[in-house]
């Protein structure tokens, strides 16, 4: 047994820059997946059939295949038809679209769980169909979806590590770069595991605080 964590300390700037990228990717993928998920859910429930059926198929397909396969398909498959997008953008899109399907599924369930009386009351007070959705149904559905959405975001933060495979220089790839210089795989992987654990803990705590704060407002 021989451990030597000094190479890790010497190369900590690389890991910090990787952490920055990981957070950047997670943030934009989260925005994409949340906004997109809500739009997809609303369309599948209330949209015209030409739009809702393909989106249902989208949810079904993306929830039934692994993220890695989707990333490869986006990165190499689009290359085959001549569309070349940079790895970072592919990563954000791939991760965002994957979790968009999961979030849409959650939004769909919570939108349907809102009592019909809410719609009836709003409609009989003279609100239009869109107004009813926007002012009454959607806010309640979002509130009910929050715990599960938070869960998904925690899983997504961890899944950013997979993007290293298509060459996005986030935490794992940066660590692998330093490993190829120092030949210390165990130490570096443990170090980034610790970083992920801390990030995860921070996200979990802030999500809990956010939910508590909202609860107080109601």
């Amino acid at each position: 047994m021989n451990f030597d964590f000094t190479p890790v300390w010497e190369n900590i700037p690389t890991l910090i820059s990787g952490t920055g990228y990981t957070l950047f990717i997670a943030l934009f993928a989260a925005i994409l997946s949340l906004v997109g998920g809500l739009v997809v859910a609303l369309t599948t429930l209330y949209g015209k059939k030409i739009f809702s059926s393909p989106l249902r198929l989208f949810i079904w397909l993306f929830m039934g295949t692994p993220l890695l396969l989707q990333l490869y398909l986006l990165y190499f498959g689009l290359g085959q038809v001549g569309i070349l997008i940079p790895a970072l953008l592919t990563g954000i899109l791939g991760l965002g679209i994957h979790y968009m399907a999961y979030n849409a599924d959650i939004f769909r369930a919570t939108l349907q769980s809102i009592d019909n009386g809410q719609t009836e009351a709003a409609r009989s007070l003279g609100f239009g169909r869109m107004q009813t959705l926007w002012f009454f149904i959607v806010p309640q559905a979002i509130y009910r979806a929050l715990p599960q959405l938070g869960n998904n975001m925690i899983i997504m933060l961890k899944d950013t590590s997979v993007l290293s495979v298509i060459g996005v220089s986030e935490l794992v790839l940066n660590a692998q770069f330093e490993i190829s210089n120092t030949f210390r795989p165990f130490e570096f992987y443990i170090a980034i595991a610790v970083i992920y654990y801390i990030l995860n803990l921070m996200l979990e705590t802030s999500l809990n605080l956010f939910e508590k704060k909202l609860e107080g407002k109601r």
Partner: protein
Amino acid sequence: MDFTLMWEITPLLLKAAWVTVTISVMAFILGLFVATVLVIMRSSSFRIIRWPARIYISVMRGTPFFVQLLIFYYGGSAFGINLDAYMAGLLAMGLNIGAYMSEAIRGSLVAVDSGQNEASRSLGFSRTQTMISVILPQAAGLMIRSLGVLSVILIKGSSLVSIISVVELTYQAQRIISSTYKPFEVFAVSAVLYLILIYGVISFVDWLYNRYTRYLFH
């Protein structure tokens, strides 16, 4: 779209899909074993036994599976242990899903009304008898559901072991692509195989749940 190619590669991919199935099944069994131990440890009355289990679960759930996989495969050399790719993949999958499973099992046990436990104990059943013949049969319905969800996550996660060169569905797809340069067709076939696997498991779990709970609640 090159349909003849898609037809030609199907047998190869089917063979690789079988590896995906076997590694997932074995990891599931390993995970169940780990989870049982963890659940028993967490219900212990000694803090020294409870805490290691809690730390294990927290670390396994708080760090990415991908990083754990890399630690198992590349990190072993720091201890003089060199696992082959298949073993490392299987261990990482089983030990990771075991942590999630223990939470699922504990959750379904806690969900059984505590009056059941009290009634059974006051009728003279021992703690073990109560667990086996009163609590477990009632918790099993919920357990089937949550373990079913985890088995789907397990199958999707198994695509990641392709990174450490275990020849399963995703790895085989990439290998075929490197000789045919047709990523879209190859990934489409493997996506179909994943869809069959995953929705097959989901319908099996639903069937099992319905069959089991039919006698329980009616």
